[in-house]
């Protein structure tokens, strides 16, 4: 029976520690293609921002309900609808852009940590 190699144990310990915490998340992220991961999260953000926008619009309408009830007959509904749509697109657009930047960064970071992990695996293979 051969003796334990200290360096090998240290390397395996670090790798196992990585697998327990950060690695699990990184593996989950890198399970996707970059574009799929980013688009999925952008879509999630657009859904969230749509709900948030609907909620804000509801609060705004209730806040101004008296004025809106008086003006509703004289209001150009198409123009109002277009304005609301413009605000929504701007709101969801900003949210999508932020998500794109944040989740692209998270994917790249996960990819890099997995690359380091794979390098450690190759090193382990040499023992």
């Amino acid at each position, binding site marked *: *029976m*051969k003796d*334990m190699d200290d360096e*090998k*144990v240290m390397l*395996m*310990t670090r*790798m*196992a*520690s990585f697998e*327990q915490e950060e690695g699990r998340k990184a593996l989950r992220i890198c399970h996707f293609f970059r574009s799929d991961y980013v688009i999925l999260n952008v879509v*999630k*953000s657009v859904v*969230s*921002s749509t*709900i*948030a926008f609907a*909620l*804000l619009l*509801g*609060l705004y309408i*209730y*806040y101004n*309900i*008296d004025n809106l009830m008086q003006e509703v007959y004289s209001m150009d509904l198409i123009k109002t609808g277009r304005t609301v749509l413009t605000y929504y697109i701007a709101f969801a657009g900003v949210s999508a852009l*932020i*998500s794109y930047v*944040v989740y692209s960064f998270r994917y790249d970071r996960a990819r890099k940590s997995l690359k380091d992990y794979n390098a450690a695996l190759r090193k382990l293979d040499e023992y």
Partner: protein
Amino acid sequence: MEQLFYVRDTIKGLFGRFDGYIKSVLRFLLCLIVLLSINGSLGYMERLNSTPIVLIISLMCSFLPANMIVFFAALFVAAHSYGVSLESAVIVTALFFLMFLLYYRYSPKDTLAVLLTPLCFFFKIPYLMPLVFGLIGTPLSAISVSCGVIAYYVIGYLSTNYTVITGMSDETTVMRFRFIMDGMLKNREMMVMVIGFSATVIIVNVIKRFSFRFSWPVAIFAGTLTDILVIAIAASKTGAKISGGGLILGSLFAMLAAFIVKFFIFTVDYEKTERVQFEDDDYYYYVKAVPKIKSREYKGL
């Protein structure tokens, strides 16, 4: 200095050994303090003011995920605001839901930032939060800290305007709704704090990431300066009432406290003992990896 290292390493050793238990106890205490503070400031829903309920929820939170404390805290505030009026409950719930959407999408791990920011306001040390979370968080921690600031001002608004809101029973629902919305959202002091704290978190975090030797102390100094300047400028532009002396003294105290927090807490929290299992062709390994102890005197527990 050696004494300080000794104290720090003893704490670190304790954390390493009793990591699971200490976390549960801390979670229990945090939940208890948060819920008691909410009950103390609001307390308009009689049934929630009972100590057994608070204790049971705190005990539950000691083994549930940390975000459950945020959930229960939000539930308590919403329930107490229902005790004020239906309109305030609707507004508070909508506001918390909006914050939840933002927080959960971008920084769901920053539970402490959301909970500790209002607590620090209660304990009169609010300027500490952006510095600390700039150091340990990400730029997106600005969202969590801002959610905490908004939660604090919402609680403060309800607590100071309880008599006025309940006295508006003759007014229409819409009038009461409008009054509460105006009071909560057109709060200039809150806006100034959100802007100042967000800027500070981002500046501290960006500088801390640089690889030069004293990036952490420089980040704390720059953060303190940003905090004072941004809040002072924003307050003068918007006319928000923020005490200049309080801002400067509070920020300087926060700077000092940030250095102490960095020295004591970060190493304890982030260099914890790891237990890992793996195997190769010859052995099964059950390894306990303990972070290196820096001071000479400490020899373990």
